[in-house]
């Protein structure tokens, strides 16, 4: 009888305490793409749960994260943290009232203290902060060190030097750039954006993006013509038709094994580059993409963005997670452990010092370029959606000889003017 009384008393105690404990814990949900990225990022992000036990992060793996998120959020559900593929997607969601303005959180939680000044501006829609950029990106020119040393080549600084080098590379029986778009067709836009920036210059691109000059401006058209000439010469993957069938594996292996000399690719490719070169036993390095006048320009891009769902029952807790996630300490840890491109926050010198110097140099140079007016624009970050799709879809018609560079530029100008007039242009850092 006594035993029953004790059990009864324990049961009452448990029942009395359990709801109190449950009420104190707030769960913040986040949907994330399945795969190797989550395998590395996931455990690091879940370290947040040790910071404040009253807020727990829940990561839900999804096969097609963006489309699932978009559908769920539009239907009044979805995760607390809404991740989008880029600013143009944020714009549409903010216009539809599906995500929250975060200005009050930014102020109360001091986001301006660790984000670069211009970086927070990228998340503005109609003057309010709706998103935080998750991954700072740029494009550089990777090269195979052994191939260059064996042939006595030096990495080019200018387009003229690149021309001369490309002839030597081809004479040596190698492919100039290990490229192809069979795995990801929007790869095309990387080169369009780079050629605009490196040939015409970022100031011209800025003028066109802000509507001061048209995309049919002579220097911008010349950039497209030069890209087409290089494509027709077979620099990209060995020929136009091969470019359309070369996949991601080809791109990595041909550079890492030395059958191609160089590769213009994003900072997001570092992890793959390290892996493939590790397997081949050769050495990689990088230089800025050659420009018309030899200036080191770096295009700025944003990989993903994070926002707070307008339907989130606890936006404050979601904001607290974002504060932790975007802190230089967490971003530094993710860069060191997973080679994740960091958010545009001030990463400590000690973190960069512990990295492979080649990797650290990319972010140091990008930071220097953005502070010294040597930055350009990536198309997926700063162009409105219709123009962006046009850029990577229609450039193939130039490469297959169906239209000219001027016709391509005229088509872009027509579409861009419509989107500019409709106010659909993502925020562009003023220069």
């Amino acid at each position: 009888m006594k035993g029953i009384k004790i059990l009864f008393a324990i049961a009452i105690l448990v029942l009395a305490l359990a709801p109190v404990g449950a009420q104190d814990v707030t769960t913040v949900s986040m949907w994330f793409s399945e795969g190797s990225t989550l395998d590395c990022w996931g455990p690091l992000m879940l370290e947040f749960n040790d910071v404040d036990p009253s807020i727990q992060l829940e990561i839900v793996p999804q096969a097609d994260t963006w489309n699932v998120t978009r559908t769920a959020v539009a239907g009044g559900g979805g995760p607390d943290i809404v991740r989008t593929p880029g600013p143009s997607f944020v714009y549409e969601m903010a216009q539809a009232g599906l995500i929250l303005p975060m200005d009050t959180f930014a102020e109360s939680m001091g986001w301006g203290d660790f984000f670069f000044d211009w970086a927070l501006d990228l998340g503005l829609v109609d003057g309010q902060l709706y998103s935080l950029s998750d991954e700072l990106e740029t494009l550089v020119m990777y090269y195979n060190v052994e191939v260059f040393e064996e042939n006595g080549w030096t990495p080019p600084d200018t387009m003229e030097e690149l021309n001369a080098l490309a002839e030597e590379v081809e004479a040596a029986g190698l492919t100039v750039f290990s490229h192809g778009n069979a795995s990801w067709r929007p790869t095309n836009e990387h080169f369009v954006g780079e050629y605009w920036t490196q040939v015409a210059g970022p100031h011209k691109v800025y003028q066109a993006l802000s509507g001061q000059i048209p995309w049919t401006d002579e220097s911008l058209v010349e950039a497209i013509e030069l890209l087409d000439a290089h494509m027709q010469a077979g620099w990209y993957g060995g020929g136009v038709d091969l470019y359309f069938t070369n996949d991601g594996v080809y791109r990595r292996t041909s550079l890492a094994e030395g059958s191609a000399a160089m590769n213009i690719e994003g900072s997001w490719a570092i992890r793959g580059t390290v892996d493939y070169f590790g397997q081949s036993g050769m050495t990689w390095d990088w230089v800025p993409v050659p420009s018309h006048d030899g200036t080191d320009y770096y295009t700025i891009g944003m990989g993903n963005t994070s926002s707070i769902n307008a339907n989130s029952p606890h936006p404050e807790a979601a904001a607290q997670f974002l504060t932790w996630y975007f802190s230089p300490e967490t971003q530094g840890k993710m860069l060191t452990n997973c080679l994740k491109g960091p958010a545009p926050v001030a990463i400590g010198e000690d973190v960069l010092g512990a990295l492979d110097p080649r990797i650290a140099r990319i972010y140091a140079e990008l930071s220097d370029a953005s502070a010294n007016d040597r930055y350009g624009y990536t198309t997926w970050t700063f162009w409105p959606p219709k123009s962006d799709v046009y850029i990577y879809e229609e450039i193939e018609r130039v490469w297959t000889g169906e239209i000219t560079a001027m016709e391509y530029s005229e088509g872009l100008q027509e579409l861009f003017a419509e989107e500019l007039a409709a106010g659909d242009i993502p925020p562009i850092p003023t220069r």
Partner: protein
Amino acid sequence: MAVLTQQKPTTVFEKLNDETWRRKFLRNVLIPWLFIAPLLILHIYVVTVPAVQGIYMSMTDWKGVGQNANFIGLENYRELFFEDETFGKAFGNNMIWMIFFLTVPFVLALFAATMLSQIKRGGMLYRSILFIPYVLASVVTITIWKNLLNPQRGIGAALDNMLGLENTFGIAYLGRPESALMSIAFIDNWHFWGFLMILFLAAMQAIPPVLYDAAKIDGANRWDEFRHVTLPGIRPVVLFMFMMVAIWSFLAFDYIFLSTQGGPGGASEVIATLLYKNAFFRFEAGYGAAMGVVISIFAGFIIMIFVTLRRRGWDI
């Protein structure tokens, strides 16, 4: 003599008071409808309502995100038919696709089914082998064929190596505008024609053998038997599949999107891939919905042709 006559009830009240009428109504009207009601409600919910919504959305500027959708009448259709060059090109590719699939797999399937119908032993093994590609997921089929058609490591390259040739067979079939669409059609057909063959074979086996015996007595050779016995015997299946394949041709999406995403330079673009890009990449979901409606109209048009032929006495 008094004549007893029972007058038929005419008003609603009279009908409800009439036992016979009530029973008839219950048996012939109410109970059948009650049986079909769950399915009907489900159909209305998952097919009719979205279809009507889709038609409405095709007349809006909906971006596919949120609820903001302004009614713009037939503007999307005007742009589709009179301004959008890519739509015309995609439609043309759909027609090429349809012509290909209304000929090549039908000829292959008819030939193989006729041959297999003669085999008495081991026929099941052949049928299974020819049918296996049909049960493979499209993503698997595409992955296999992208590797086989790869100009550097595919069968063409291997053939070139074997014959001591250079870039003769090892070419980028999927990377050339002139061959991309037909290469994807070839891959899709590799997966599809076995299914047609099985259908035709099943239909052939349902033809009474006595008809073949009669034909032989009349002096028919193999070709005559095929022409005057086999083909008329399987005609309903062939024509039904003609209709289905014609409709499916306008829904072609997965093989194209997984292999070239419509490229290079729009060479393999079809309406469904264009629709997807407009709805999900360009934020023009209303415009995409208009494309979807146009596809449905084409499908309806094809069905209408077959219904008309049936009404005219065709055995379909």
